[in-house]
């Protein structure tokens, strides 16, 4: 789907917070919608070969992307390479971005994570002990408190993702953790946890199905 079609009147209008009455509570997800609308506008400018839009997108999402790929690769140089490759791919493939498939930030994170996993798998590098808790994100869920430094972007989303994850049984969080943050295949997860492959598949599917509902508003906000 080309952007020309995808942009057809579906982009939410950015809300100017200066016009809001301070006593009014900002509607849920408005910040998310506004943020993504700005991202989509940048993608549209990138389609028109405006490289300043690429710079702006980089400024907005470089840190989140770097954090994710550094966590996977554990190597600053390689993580920086992946960040550069990801934004370059975003520039080259901007026209292939489909708002109906999610927010710009998730598109970027997906590209970056896949590139990081490709590097991991090409070198067959693995954490010595994937079950070690020090590298596990979901084993002990971080506090949902909002960091003021990132309050403007993604904090609300992070809080809600954490809340949704808290509702999952630990064994389901574990397979997500090993699959997403450690980059293990389902066979490797089965070996690491000592569970049958079928059980791993079932846990993955149940975890995803349970997360879908509480997080569905973010897919809708991206459209």
């Amino acid at each position, binding site marked *: 789907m080309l952007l020309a079609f995808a942009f057809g009147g579906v982009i939410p209008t950015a809300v100017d917070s200066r016009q809001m009455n301070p006593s009014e509570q900002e509607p849920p997800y408005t910040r998310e919608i506004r943020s993504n609308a700005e991202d989509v506008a940048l993608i549209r400018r990138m389609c028109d*070969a405006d490289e*300043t839009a690429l710079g702006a997108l980089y400024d907005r999402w470089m*840190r989140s992307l770097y954090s994710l790929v*550094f966590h996977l690769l*554990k190597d*600053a140089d390689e993580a920086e390479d992946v960040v550069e490759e990801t*934004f370059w791919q975003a520039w080259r493939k901007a026209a292939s971005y489909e708002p109906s498939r999610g927010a710009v930030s998730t598109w970027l994170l997906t590209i970056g994570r896949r590139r990081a996993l490709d590097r991991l798998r090409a070198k067959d590098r693995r954490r010595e002990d994937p079950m070690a808790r020090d590298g596990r994100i979901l084993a002990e869920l971080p506090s949902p408190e909002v960091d003021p430094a990132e309050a403007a972007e993604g904090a609300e*989303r992070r809080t809600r993702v954490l809340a949704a994850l808290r509702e999952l049984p630990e064994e389901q969080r574990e397979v997500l953790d090993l*699959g997403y943050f450690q980059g*293990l295949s389902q066979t490797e997860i089965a070996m690491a946890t000592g569970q049958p492959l079928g059980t791993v598949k079932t846990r993955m599917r149940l975890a995803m199905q349970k997360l879908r509902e509480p997080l569905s508003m973010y897919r809708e906000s991206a459209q």
Partner: protein
Amino acid sequence: MTNLSHEEAYSELAAVALDAAPSEVSAAVREHAVACPECGPELVAMEETVALLGQLAPQWAMNPGHGAGIRSRLLMRARGERESRSSAAPGPPDLARGVASLTGLGHKLTPGSQRAIEEEVKKVLPQQKRKPPFFRESGLMALAASIAFIAAAVQLVRVTSERNAMRAELAARANTPTRTDSVKPVMSEKEALIAAMAGPDVKIVPLTSKSATRMGRMFWNRSSNDWTMVVYTMRPPKPGMTYQVWLVTDSAKISAGTFMPDSTGHAFMQAKYALDRNALKAVAVTEEPAGGMPVPTGAILVSGSAGP
């Protein structure tokens, strides 16, 4: 595995969304999902859900200098690509080429081509002589016009050829490195280095080891934001490790880059990073895994206080 039943594909959707399925299974599931009204939307929803997990990665800050470098490179590449795209569009027509093509001989006329034109002229002349008297006058006028046109074309081509030859020669001269050209970058580099390490606004931080042995200096040009570090007698780091330089402020330890000493223990490193002129408290060097770390993890081996 190329043909999956609906049930098989459905059971693999979560693994595919997580990139945790074998590549051949992933390809087969995606092929099925394209046409399946149930699996297609389900896979999209799962992939979007999975991507939200990326928000939970612990936050790491990239080395600011590296981050700025990546940004600059991206913008330069993007600009270059845009410009090459626009320059690939057809340009204005070449007048010389158009005129030469009128002669039927193309625009790349050489002395051989000119002879061909002259032969064409010779062919025309006898034909004109065979014309009956009734046509002689008008024929002669046409012949004269033809000769004049061809002569003009030949002259134009000759001038064009000479111009092209001169341009080629100039281009060749421009591309030929002269002794002066080869010295220029070296001189510029040295001038830049002197500017970075000297001047009224350069702060010098002496660096010492834990045993207070002098190890080198950090030169901070607060006007140009250039950081130049020189160290000596550094032992090689352990295998798989590197040395990393940190700019220590009250609130952060900022990576200024990594370095490896040479065989004599000397090392030289430069970085560009804007820092408030009163913010620097110290400079420190730690040993870190190859590639460097976003925050220091090793013990401080070399350090220097920025002083007042």
